[in-house]
C-alpha cells in the first residue's frame, strides 16, 4: 500500500540541500545574456530604434530590433494543439513588436557577454514612438476602437460568447414572479500576478541544425510545438528540456521567453543565449490573472429560492490573446455549475484587448474571479432575505449527480454538502453569527464563508492525452518517466506512490526521472488545470499494470506456473491466494535481463486518451477582526474543507491547500497590480506588490471529505487549483458580517476600506488644514 500514505516528497532532500538543478544552474559557462528593451509607452507604434550608445558598452554582442525579426505570428497559450482551425488559439504574437500594445512591450533585445553588460546596453537603446491613448479596461477598450490593438480584431473584441440554462429568459421569469426580490450588482476582480519564486527564464543553443531550449516551463512538449510555429521550423528540429522549476501557477503554461531564446541562438551562430527576466519584467512581460468585471442581476423568492440570474462578464485581456476567451468562458461556467436557477440563467462573456500586461492562465483559470461574484451574490441575497448564508447556499447550490447541460461533465463523487456541514460545525457557525449580530465600537468581528465547484481536467473542451513509461532495472527497482511535469506541487511524489501501489513494490524502488526532455520523455500536455494526478495518473496506471503483467508473465515462465496464480507484493513475486513469497523481484529482474536462455528487457509504455472529467468542490470559512479606524482586516481563523476524492498523499494535499489559501488571502486583502494614467506599472516589484508575508498569514486549518471518485485512477480528482478559489469571497463575506459593509471589488485594501467606511458613516472624515 502506498496510495493514501503521507510519504516524504521524493525531491525534498535535493531541494533543501540545493542539489536540485534549475534552468540557470545548468547554463554553460560561455552563455551569452539577452536583455529585452521594453516600450516606454502603453499604446502606439515604434518609429525607429537607435542602438548607437548601446553598442559602445563593453561586452556588447548584438542588438536585435522589432524591425529585424520574422513577421510570423504565433499563438502562445499552453493548450493542446487543435487540429480544427476554428478551435485553434489566436496567433497574434511576433518575437518582438513594432506595434506597442502595452507598457513594457518587447521592442528590441540586446545580446551581451554578461547580464550586467546586457542590462547596461539595453538601458541605452533609444526608441521613437507614435503614441495612442492607453486602454485600461475591457469596457474602455470596447468603446475606443480608433487604433485597434490588432488589425484582425478591429473592435478590440477577441470573442463574445453566450449561453443560457432553462427554457425561458430572465425577463420572462421576472414577469412571472412579481413577488420576487431582485439584486443588481457589479462585482470586480483585479489584476494579480503569479509571483513564482523563479522568474521566467530559458536558454537555447544549437546542436547541428537542431535547437535545444532549456526552460523553466510547465509544458515542455507544447513549448516545442510553439517554438516550431514561431520560427517556422519542423518540430523534430527542436528539443525542449525542462529541469526543476521554481513554481509556475499557470504563468509557465504559456510560451514566455522560449521562442525568443530559440531565435536568438540562431543569430549568434548557435552559441548559447540566456533570456532571464527580472522580477519587474516578470510582472509586466509574462502573464497576469485576468481582471474580470461582472454586471449581474439575480431574482429570488422570499423563501430563498433562486429563480433566475442574468450577467455579463467583461474580461481584460491585455495586449496579446494568450489564453484569451477560454478564461472568461470557463469563469462564467461556474455560475451554472455552482447554483441552480429554477427558471433561467443568461450569461454573456466578452474578452477585449487592453493595453495592459497580457493575461493568461493562473491557478483556477477564471474561477477565482467568478467565485468572488457568485459568493458575494449569495451573501448579498441572503442579507436581503434575512436568511443565513449557509441556508441560502444549501437551498440553491449544486446537488449530487449534477451533469453540465452543455459539456456533459458530471459530478461523480459529491462531497459539497458534507464540506459545508463539516466546516459549519468546526467553525461554530451559528453561535458566531449570533455573537456577532449586533456589534458597535471600533473593533468588530465577523464570520463568512464561500463555496466553489471546479472541474478536474479540460475534457471535453480540449484534448486530454498523457503518456508514461516504466523500465524494470536489474535490481528489481523501476525507472519512471512521465510526460507530466513536477512544478513544485509534488507530482513526482504522487506518481512514485501510484507506481509502487500498482506494481506492488515499495516507493524506494521507484526512481522517477524528474526532467522532461522532448527527445526522450513520453508525451504529455503538461502541468495545468488540476489534471495530472487524474489524467496522467490514468496513463501511469495503464503503464504500471502493463509492466506488472510483463513481470508476472516472465515469472510464470521462470517458476513454471500460470501467471494468474502470481502477484507482486512488497518487492516479491508471491502466490496470489496466500501471499507466500516465491521469488524476490530483484532476482527475477536480474534473470530477465541476463538470462542465457531468454533475455527480455521488461518495460512498459502507455498512452491514455482521457475522455472523462469530474468535479471537485469545497467550502472555505473565515473569521475576521476589523479595526474600523485603521481600515485593517485581521484574519483570526481560516478553514478550508475540500472534496477532492481519495487523497494520494494527505500531507502533500494539506500543503497544497495551505499554498492555495495563502494565495486566496493575497487575492482577498492585499494583491493588485497598479498602473498610472498612462498605463505604466506602479508596483512591479515585491515591495510594492503586497504578497502576504508570514506575518500576515494565520494558521490555516484544512479538512477533507474523501468521497472516492469512480473515474479517478485511484479515486482521486482535482486539488491543485481549488484551494486558491474560495478564500477571497469568504473573507469579504466575513467583513460584511462584521461591519455590514459589502465590498464588491477586490482586494479589500486599506484605502478601499477607508472609502467604504466613510460612505457607510463608520468613519468621520478629517478636515486637517489641506
Amino acid at each position, binding site marked *: 500500500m502506498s496510495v493514501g500514505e503521507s510519504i516524504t516528497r521524493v525531491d525534498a532532500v535535493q531541494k533543501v540541500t540545493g542539489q536540485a538543478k534549475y534552468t540557470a544552474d545548468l547554463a554553460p559557462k560561455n552563455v551569452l545574456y539577452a536583455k529585452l528593451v521594453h516600450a516606454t509607452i502603453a499604446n502606439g507604434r515604434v518609429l525607429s530604434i537607435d542602438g548607437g550608445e548601446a553598442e559602445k558598452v563593453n561586452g556588447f554582442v548584438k542588438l536585435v530590433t522589432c524591425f529585424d525579426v520574422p513577421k510570423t505570428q504565433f499563438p502562445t497559450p499552453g493548450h493542446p494543439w487543435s487540429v480544427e482551425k476554428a478551435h485553434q488559439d489566436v496567433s497574434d504574437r511576433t518575437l518582438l513588436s513594432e506595434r506597442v500594445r502595452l507598457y513594457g512591450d518587447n521592442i528590441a533585445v540586446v545580446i551581451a557577454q554578461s547580464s*550586467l553588460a546586457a542590462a547596461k546596453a539595453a538601458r541605452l537603446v533609444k526608441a521613437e514612438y507614435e503614441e495612442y491613448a492607453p486602454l485600461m479596461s475591457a469596457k474602455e477598450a470596447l468603446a475606443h476602437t480608433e487604433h485597434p490593438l490588432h488589425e484582425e480584431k478591429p473592435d478590440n473584441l477577441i470573442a463574445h460568447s453566450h449561453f443560457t440554462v432553462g427554457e425561458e429568459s430572465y425577463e420572462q421569469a421576472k414577469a412571472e414572479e412579481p413577488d420576487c426580490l431582485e439584486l443588481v450588482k457589479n462585482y470586480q476582480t483585479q489584476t494579480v500576478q503569479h509571483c513564482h519564486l523563479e522568474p521566467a527564464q530559458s536558454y537555447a543553443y544549437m546542436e547541428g541544425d537542431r535547437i535545444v531550449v532549456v526552460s523553466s516551463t510547465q509544458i515542455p512538449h507544447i513549448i516545442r510545438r510553439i517554438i516550431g510555429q514561431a520560427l517556422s521550423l519542423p518540430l523534430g528540429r527542436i528539443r525542449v528540456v525542462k529541469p526543476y522549476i521554481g513554481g509556475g501557477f499557470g504563468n509557465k503554461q504559456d510560451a514566455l521567453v522560449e521562442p525568443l531564446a530559440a531565435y536568438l541562438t540562431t543569430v549568434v551562430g548557435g552559441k548559447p543565449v540566456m533570456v532571464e527576466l527580472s522580477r519587474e519584467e516578470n510582472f509586466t512581460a509574462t502573464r497576469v490573472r485576468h481582471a474580470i468585471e461582472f454586471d449581474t442581476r439575480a431574482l429570488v423568492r422570499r423563501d430563498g429560492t433562486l429563480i433566475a440570474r442574468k450577467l455579463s462578464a467583461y474580461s481584460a485581456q491585455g495586449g496579446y490573446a494568450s489564453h484569451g476567451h477560454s478564461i472568461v468562458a470557463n469563469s462564467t461556467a461556474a455560475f451554472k455549475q455552482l447554483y441552480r436557477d429554477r427558471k433561467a440563467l443568461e450569461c454573456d462573456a466578452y474578452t477585449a484587448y487592453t493595453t495592459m500586461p497580457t493575461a493568461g492562465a493562473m491557478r483556477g483559470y477564471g474561477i477565482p474571479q467568478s467565485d468572488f461574484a457568485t459568493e458575494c451574490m449569495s451573501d448579498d441575497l441572503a442579507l436581503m432575505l434575512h436568511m443565513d448564508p449557509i441556508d441560502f447556499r444549501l437551498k440553491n447550490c449544486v446537488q449530487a449527480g449534477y451533469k453540465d447541460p452543455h459539456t456533459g461533465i458530471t459530478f461523480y463523487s459529491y462531497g459539497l454538502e458534507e464540506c459545508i456541514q463539516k466546516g459549519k460545525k468546526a467553525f461554530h457557525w451559528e453561535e458566531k453569527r449570533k455573537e456577532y449580530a449586533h456589534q458597535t465600537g471600533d473593533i468588530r468581528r465577523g464570520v463568512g464563508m464561500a463555496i466553489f465547484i471546479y472541474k478536474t481536467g479540460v475534457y471535453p473542451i480540449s484534448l486530454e492525452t498523457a503518456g508514461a513509461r516504466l523500465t524494470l532495472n536489474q535490481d528489481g527497482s523501476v525507472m519512471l518517466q512521465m510526460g507530466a511535469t513536477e512544478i513544485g506541487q509534488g507530482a513526482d511524489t504522487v506518481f512514485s506512490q501510484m507506481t509502487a501501489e500498482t506494481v506492488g513494490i515499495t516507493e524506494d524502488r521507484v526512481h522517477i526521472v524528474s526532467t522532461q526532455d522532448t527527445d526522450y520523455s513520453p508525451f504529455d500536455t503538461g502541468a495545468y488545470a488540476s489534471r495530472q494526478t487524474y489524467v496522467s495518473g490514468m496513463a501511469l496506471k495503464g503503464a504500471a499494470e502493463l509492466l506488472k503483467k510483463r513481470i508476472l508473465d516472465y515469472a510464470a515462465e521462470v517458476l513454471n506456473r500460470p501467471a494468474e496464480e502470481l502477484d507482486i507484493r512488497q518487492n516479491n513475486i508471491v502466490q496470489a491466494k496466500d501471499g507466500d513469497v516465491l521469488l524476490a523481484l530483484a532476482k527475477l529482474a536480474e534473470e530477465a535481463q541476463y538470462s542465457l536462455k531468454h533475455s527480455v528487457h521488461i518495460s512498459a509504455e502507455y498512452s491514455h486518451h482521457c475522455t472523462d472529467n469530474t468535479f471537485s468542490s469545497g467550502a472555505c470559512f473565515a473569521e475576521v477582526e476589523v479595526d474600523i479606524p485603521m481600515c485593517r482586516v485581521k484574519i483570526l481563523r481560516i478553514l478550508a474543507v475540500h472534496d477532492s476524492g481519495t487523497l494520494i498523499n494527505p500531507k502533500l494535499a494539506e500543503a497544497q491547500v495551505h499554498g492555495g489559501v495563502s494565495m486566496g488571502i493575497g487575492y482577498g486583502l492585499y494583491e493588485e497590480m497598479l498602473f498610472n494614467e498612462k498605463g505604466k506599472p506602479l*508596483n512591479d516589484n515585491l*515591495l510594492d506588490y*503586497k504578497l502576504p508575508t508570514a*506575518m*500576515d498569514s494565520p494558521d490555516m486549518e484544512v479538512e477533507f471529505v474523501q468521497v472516492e471518485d469512480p473515474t479517478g485512477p485511484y479515486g482521486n480528482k482535482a486539488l491543485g487549483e481549488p484551494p486558491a478559489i474560495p478564500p477571497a469571497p469568504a473573507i469579504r463575506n466575513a467583513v460584511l458580517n462584521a461591519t455590514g459593509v459589502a465590498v464588491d471589488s477586490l482586494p479589500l485594501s*486599506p484605502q478601499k476600506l477607508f*472609502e467604504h467606511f466613510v460612505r457607510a458613516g463608520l468613519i468621520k472624515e478629517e478636515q*486637517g488644514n489641506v
Partner: protein
Amino acid sequence: MYDVQSVYQAKSVQDAIEALGKDERAMIVSGGTDVWVQNREGKHAGLPFVSIHGLPEITGVRIEEDGTLVIGAATCFTDITASPLIQRHVPMLGEAVDQVGSPQIRNVGTIGGNVCNGVTSADSAPSLFALDAQLKLQGAMGERIVPITEFYTGAGKTVRAHDEVLCEVRIPKESYEGVYGQYIKYGKRNAMEISTLGCAVTVKLGNQKLVRVRIAYGVAGPTPLRCFEAEAELVGKPVGKETACLAADLAVQAIRPRTSWRASKEFRLHLAHELCTRAMEQAMEKAGGKIND
C-alpha cells in the same frame, strides 16, 4: 552583479572622508540595503563607492558621562533593537527599527543609512524626531552637530555635504529620562513594508499632566516632521482620552500629506489622526498615566 566603477572599503571615518574628497562622484555606502537596490535599477551606475560598512568607531551604542545616549551611525537595526541601553532608555526606538523591512534587511541596514537616505518613510525618523536626536557629522572641515529637525531639506535631500560622514546619532539625557514614547507604523502588511504613515509620540508626565510632549510624523510631508505648535498647546493638559484626541486634532493641522498611488491625502489625514490618538494614549499609559474611557 552591480554596475560600479569600484568599491573602496574605508579603514576609518577619516579615510572615508579623504576617499570621498578625492572624487566628487564618489558615493558613500554602508549596509547597502538602499544603495544597491537603487544601483540595480540603474541609479548611481558606474560610480566609485566608498564603504563605511562595519567601521568599529561608528558602530555600537554607548552612554557618555553627561548621560547622552550615542548610537554609532553604522549600527545595524538588529543590534539597536537588541541593545540593553536602547531597551532601558529608549525602547520605542528599538521597537521602531525592528519594523524595518525583514530580518535580513535589519541585519545589515544601519540607522545612519536610514537617516542619510533622506526619505520621509524612514522607520527610525519619527522616533528620532520625538527624542530630539542630534546628528554628529564629520568632514574635511571638522565636526558639527545638527539637530535632526534641521537635517532634512526636502525629499531625499539632507544638509550632509558630499564628503561628510554621519558618525553618531545622539539623544540627550533630558529627552529620554522620564520620557515615554510610542511609535506606530502604518503599512498594508505586517512585514516587508514601507510606511504609509508613521507617528511617534513621547511624553513626560507630572501629576497626571503633560509636562513635555513631542509629536512627529513620517510620510505626512516631503520630510519627517514635528508638530511644534500642537506640542506647545498640549503642555499642562491632563492625561486622558480627551487630551489624546485633542493632540490628534492639533497635530493634523501641522501636516501636509499628499495623494499618491499608495494612499490618498484624505486617508493619510485620517490615519494621522488615528495614529496620533493611539500613540498618545499608549505613551501616556507607559508613562503611568491613567486613561479612563
